[in-house]
């Protein structure tokens, strides 16, 4: 199941990814997993085993909200949307992530990392 060219998403970053994905509009679980693949050019893969627990966890924290609706293919689906609190959380997580990746990039580009 783990194809070598796909990156497993860490639990901690999954929240950020889900929130960010929902910024484009409400979506259901399957749609989110597909979108993540598309938006990362197939590099990222979200395991369903982690996706649904993550969705329910975010829902419990009131960052996203769920409702039942019907998809284009006439399928009853549970659709998630960002809440105001979720938007705020997303901004916070994003800035933390940006700082982290900046720091990571610095470390990796430093004298030690240059050898790699």
């Amino acid at each position, binding site marked *: 199941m783990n194809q070598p060219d796909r990156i497993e998403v860490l639990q901690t970053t999954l929240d950020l990814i889900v929130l960010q994905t929902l910024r484009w509009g409400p979506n*259901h679980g*399957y749609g989110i997993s597909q979108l993540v693949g598309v938006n990362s050019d197939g590099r990222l893969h979200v395991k*369903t*085993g982690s996706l*649904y*627990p993550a*969705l329910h966890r975010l829902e*419990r924290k009131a960052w996203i909200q769920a409702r039942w609706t019907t998809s284009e293919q006439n*399928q009853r689906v549970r659709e998630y949307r960002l809440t105001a609190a979720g938007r705020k959380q997303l901004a916070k997580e994003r800035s933390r992530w940006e700082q982290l990746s900046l720091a990571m990039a610095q470390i990796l580009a430093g004298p030690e990392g240059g050898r790699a």
Partner: protein
Amino acid sequence: MSSFFARARRKRELDEEIRAHFEMAVRDRMARGESRRDAERAARLEFGNVDNVREDARAAWGGMWMDRFGRDIRFALRALRKRPAFSLSTILILALGIGATTAIFSVVNGVLIQPLPYPESDRLIELQHQNGGNDDIAASTALYFTYREHNQTFDSLALWTSGTAVVTGAQQSEEVQSLDVTHEFLPTLGVGPALGRGFSEVDGQPGAPLTVVVSAAYWERRLGGAEDAIGQSLVIEGEPYTIIGVLPASFRFVTEQVEILTPMQPAPGVGGTAMFGSFGERGIARLKPGVTLAEASADVARMVPIARETFPPFGGDARDDLNDFGPNLQPLKARVVGDLDDVLWILMGTIGLLLLIACANVANLQLMRTDARLEELSIRAALGARFGAIARSLLAETVLLGVVGGAAGLLVATLGLPLLLSAAGEYLPSVLEISIDGTVLVFTLVVSLLSGLVLGFLPLMKHGLPGLTATLRAGGRAFSQSRERHRARNLLVISQVALALVLLVAAGLMMRTFQSLRSIDPGFDPSPQVQTVTIPTGSVPDFARAVRSLSDIQGGLSQLPGVESVGFASMVPLGGIGPNTGAFIEDEPGAERLVGNFELRFVSPELFETVGTPRVTGRDVSWTDVYDADRPEAAMVSESFAQRQFGSPEAALGKRMRRTPEGRWIEIVGVVGDIHLEGVDRPAPDTVYFTLRNEVAQYVSRAVTFVVRSQRVGTPGFLDELQRAVWSVDSSLPLTGVHTLNELYRRSMARTSLTLVLLAIMSTMALGLSLVGIYGVIGYLLSKRTREMGVRIALGAHYAGLKRLLLGQVLAPVVVGVLLGLGLAAALARAAQSLLFGVTALDPATYAVVAMTLVATAAVSGYLPARRVMRVDPTEALRVE
């Protein structure tokens, strides 16, 4: 509960969400050209373990324990259904134990825990006093005025007396239960009227217009429940009273039935009628918040000398007999509860023992059950189930048993409580409301859960995880039983025997008490052939006329066919508590002394003959003694009074006494046998009997009780004839208090007989349960040793020797249990001493009989299974497993 349903809905939704995901994935793959089968397979692979996804998602909701709990309960239900015999017998035993405990607890709850229906009722006390040996002295107006002015510890205080009053009017005259109270009475209790107003200070002034507050029941019954009843007039004892208020329907005052409240109007202060030394009224007080009974007692002790100095002494200067006078304050609760609390706490304790026996029995079943399941449990342990998980599932089973047993027990209690109350009817104060209320329900729930937990922990403590794995290795085929397992079972047998012995000893002691009460001569003939009827004469305004009527009634009644003799008295034996007073006694002319603390009753001629009290010496009083003003007034005294005051009954004859220093002399003309006036288990008090000629009679009691001895008592029409005979003299006189002396006698022993009946039931249950337990344990032990016995017999052991060996092993724990039980019973019986009469708490005969009974029955119930094992064919036995 709502969150439980919400949870079930979310579970369904999660399943649907996952299914939708799966279907969309399949559809996408099929759109890309895969076959349906390949698509489904790939989607499933990609999805991973659906159960895990589900679990993890649910974990995100929080409250996982709910799922686990539900699973454990389902599992437990399945396990219990699979062994219906075990489950049913467990539930039955628990239902009996918990049911009995619940029933008794609801009585304890109603009587001891919530007896007073007033706000902050723990601040209410009774103003009781003591002097020398007498600790039941009431209060008085002198004390009331003193305390009201000088106290530092009461919010308020009030006096009350109870009695009956005759209400006359348009309707037939009627005797009602009345309370005469000072105006602070209702505010002290914290009760307000439901309608109208309560008494004001003005209502309590001497000479103020008379007012009355009526009970809700009286208002409904006699006044039609009309609001305009307020302001109307009631004629009570011949005087018009204005109705000013109606009490709430829930109003109760300790053990008194109240229909009307009238205001006491004591003349205040010095110069009034208040004197120090007579104690005719009862007092209540509400303590200031935070004040203890001891502080209030100190306060009263400080105020008693003030009252002594302020008010003139009652009965002249010679009141040295009140030198020890002081407070004996009691919580008001004690007045309701009385001597009930001993009985109830002891019953509660014994019922606790019964519950323990029941639990021991069930624990025993549980142990056998766990033994039978050891293999299953060991396999689960070997397959990696954690100890916690196994423990949880075992506990779930026993807690479920406990709860179901408790629910069944609640049913038992609901059915049993009315029976219990009707058995106790004569003894429990009828004003109390005893029911299975919220407190009782919580109690039952806690008891059920606790028994469930205790039952579950027992096998766990015995085995634990290491035990389980060890068993797996032994293949559940240990050749003979291990020592530890013996020990657990023996402990159960020992504790059951010990507890059952305690209960049996309690029942035995009660039975002996009952016997000694029965063997006591009450001083009268407790015969069903003696009828008593009480006639209040308060509606006859003139006392002399009332006396005439009474003597006419006596004459009329004795004319009735079949009537052997008729008499009457201010109070018949066991009919209630009468006045306790003092008088001056003349030993020889000029030498007087004050004698206190004797009972005073007023009697008619022929009374003693009618109730069957023997005359020791002298003569009976006669109507001539009453009417002939030229003769000295006559009195009779009890044998013990004559003995104590004059040395012998004969010496009392002709001696004189008077109530006040300047009063008229009364001559002692006869001595009668002692009567246990206040109850068979109470000592017969020193008693003096005056005639109705004495002027005090009219203040003590305007209601007299007639006693009629006839073979016709209890036959239809007899009471009607009595009533007609009374009405032919005065048609306004109501008949009340219709009993036989036998009823009064039985009622005075109601406490003992109630306790006896309950203890007998409980100890029989206990004995039955422990015998079943012993039979079960020993039978099981022996059946496990069938193989061993077979081997022994095959190797040539003698039957007789084997029998001795088995019986010895059966009896050893029983004997240990009996010894332990004897010690326990001896320690506990001391607590029950107050319930016993004529028997010591360590009565050797009772203990010996109970111990022997127990050993004998236990031996039989152990011998039966032993014999079965002995009969076994060795070859069979070896093949069994």
